[in-house]
């Protein structure tokens, strides 16, 4: 299954290393025994995937906090 995260757009970002505009691409995320495919901005040249701050500090942080210690 592929999922587009509606709030994340590739437009406007350029890969610092390759100087290519980022494109939306399917990325497989594996986390704690689950894998799922999402669309994230990435560099068509070097394959580097960009995780925008709103995702890292939002949903991804929430996932991380599931198992935080007391």
């Amino acid at each position, binding site marked *: *299954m592929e*999922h*587009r*995260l*509606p709030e994340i757009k590739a437009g406007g970002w350029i890969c610092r290393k390759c100087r290519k505009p980022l494109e939306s691409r399917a990325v497989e995320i594996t*986390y*704690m*025994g*689950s894998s*799922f495919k*999402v669309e994230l901005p990435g560099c068509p040249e070097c394959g580097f995937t960009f995780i925008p701050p709103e*995702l890292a500090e939002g*949903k*991804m942080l*929430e*996932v991380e906090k*599931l*198992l*935080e*210690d*007391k």
Partner: protein
Amino acid sequence: MSGAILERTESLCPVCLAVLPAEIRRSGEDALLCRRCPEHGEFKEIIWRGPPDFESWKRPKPPAAGVKRQTERQRGCPFDCGLCPEHGQHPCTVLFEITGRCNLTCPVCFAGSGKEDSPGSPPFSDLAALIPQLRRIREQAGPIVLQLSGGEPTLHPRLAELTAAAARLFPAVQLNTNGLLLAGKPGLAKRLAENGLSWVFLQFDGVRESSFEILRGRPLLKTKLAALEACAEAGLGVILVPTVAAGVNDGELGDLVRLAVNTPGVRGVHIQPMTSSGRNSLPGPEHRLTLPEVLRRLEEQTDGLLRPEDAFPPGCEHERCSFHLRYRRLPGGKLIPRPGGNACCSPDCRAGDTASAAPEESSANRDRAVEIILKSWKAPERPPSGTALPMAGSEKADVFDEFLELARKETFSVTAMAFQDVWTADLARLRGCCVQVFRPPDRFIPFCAMNLTRADGKALYSRTEA
């Protein structure tokens, strides 16, 4: 006394309870709490045996600001509980002992409970006397986890009403029970769940009848399993709570974790190594199980599924009081630890490096601790029938929401709390305590001070005197 000094603190003379300067000294891979009483001589007690190394196990926190005090300083710690002006942490869990009666007479009871109420305890069936006390706890301690305890709280004839009253005042209500009546009284678990009980702390010492016979005086495994079933049917989260002594049931920890992982409704195992308090009496120091030994037993007995390197010292209580292992539990019983364990994302990042981390703010940690306890131990909400999970790609949720929804129901914890007795009493730990016992009319006594008894058995704080 020999061995490098690892830390200086204060302790007690086990004979006369004199407050003494103390040193934690290295002895090979171990650490000993050492002090000398001018009258009764030198005392050394093992507090840490083997790896992970004593010095790697750090989580410093300064005393919390804004702790509510109920007593003045008169004789000093630990005689003025509490909380007195020397105490350095808010409560995150308060024990409310609603009866002194018990339907077991365990050879190892730290509270010394028996068939009758102790003099000075509230009248057995008097709900009207208990409700104002609940309010007093809420007013003084704030939004904590309230533990209904005893004695055996399920013997209280008004427990369901009391649970409902507590659930209106506190974010979580925990029942500390031997489970006999949950197993034997049809409908009790369901009624408590309906009245707002959050989860059950179920005394569960092992998987062999011999352990129950030694620790509880009779075989109880079948009864405990029936209690588990009743809780699962009622939708209550359950934490299995073994009292563990080396040479008695420390060889069953792995099997107990396996049982917990494979039983619906069980959210974790909370291990309590045995101390020498009340009727609890360790036959000798070789039976004392320290936190690193519990971690190693878990690793050995689960074929490395539970690893010491995944364990964290606590953010709420003192660092040497507990450890925490947190997992995602997959169907089939597979446990996935928090990624990275105690390390973090890169060699430069110290976010997860507790040994060299800067001191944390204790009061913030207390609030976080309550939130995390709630998340870890409460049974997941059941969606109303016919409600489907939000679909990815819809406006309301995406793939991360789906994952969160699923993973929230699958967290599993293995924790241990090393209670102190007069032999291991470290006043720095006591002042950092967040698990407190309410003593009417309005005192909050750190758990280990409440249960501390001198070498001759006399209690520091009597349960039979007001």
